[in-house]
């Protein structure tokens, strides 16, 4: 592709990527509002309750997201540790992000299917958490597409990466951290 063709396709590709992310967020938001919350326990695995699983899975997701953020900072040259970039760093970056994403799925399933979208503004924590949960998968899609589509502006990938991490951190603060501080620090 020539530079002229690339310049012409960049706005269209950017609009496509942003619309894709918005569509995903809107899908989960609409689902959360329309779906009748079941209130049922879902996955527990070896945990004593679904809530304990959610608290620890969200914490694990944040941990792997931190690994991805740190490796991204090294790949983009924002930090210089390690001084020589290992050849496997890119793979670790991809793997940590994918594992973080996998940890979010059972948590999001219980939130959406069992509890639903909390639109009551008198409880800001659950309201913000509900919005952030829907936004998260939208920005995640933008981030993944901005890795795969090369015609996009260079700022989009780091911006989408930071937005994905920030949204996940907000989700963790309004759920797991709140739970640790106000309910208990659960074992498995």
């Amino acid at each position, binding site marked *: 592709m020539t530079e002229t063709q690339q310049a012409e396709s960049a706005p269209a590709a950017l609009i496509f990527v942003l619309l894709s992310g918005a569509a995903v967020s809107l899908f989960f938001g609409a689902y959360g509002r329309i779906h009748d919350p*079941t209130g049922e*326990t879902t996955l527990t695995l070896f945990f004593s309750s679904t*809530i304990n699983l959610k608290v620890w899975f969200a914490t694990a997701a944040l941990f792997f997201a931190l690994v991805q953020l740190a490796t991204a900072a090294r790949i983009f040259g924002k930090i210089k540790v390690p001084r020589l970039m290992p050849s496997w760093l890119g*793979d670790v970056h991809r793997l940590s992000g*994918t594992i973080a*994403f*996998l940890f979010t799925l059972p948590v999001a399933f219980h939130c959406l299917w069992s*509890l639903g979208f909390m639109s009551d503004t008198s409880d800001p924590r659950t309201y913000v958490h509900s919005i952030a949960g829907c936004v998260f998968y939208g920005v995640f899609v933008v981030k993944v597409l901005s890795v795969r589509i090369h015609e996009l502006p260079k700022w989009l990938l780091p911006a989408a990466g930071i937005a994905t991490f920030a949204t996940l951190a907000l989700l963790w603060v309004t759920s797991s951290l709140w739970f640790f501080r106000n309910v208990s620090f659960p074992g498995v």
Partner: protein
Amino acid sequence: MLKRIVTAVEVLALASFVLFVALLLFHQPSSKSASPSGTAGAVDGAAIFDSQCATCHGSKGQGGVGPKLSGGAVTSDFEDAQAEIVVVSGGRDGMPAFQNRLSPEQLQAVVDFTRAGLQQR
């Protein structure tokens, strides 16, 4: 080797996401399918209590922002479950109304939990 693992995990993640969306759309609650009488069925009152009530009433119902529920306090305040459901549904004295947040089955389940399971925590 690491590249193969990364690719395998990415394929797994994509398949998991497809399964996640499919379950959201098509997975039926067991209480609706297995309990046509409309009872609370498999609705987890403890999970609802932990996510909705524990912040004010404490994880063991010991009280905090909201009044104590443990040690028989809830059953002495409300002689029957229906009276408790009325307060949980409509709210009272700073407690928010849950009628728009929880279904009737969820209200019944969480009230049943406060009167039984919570007392043993």
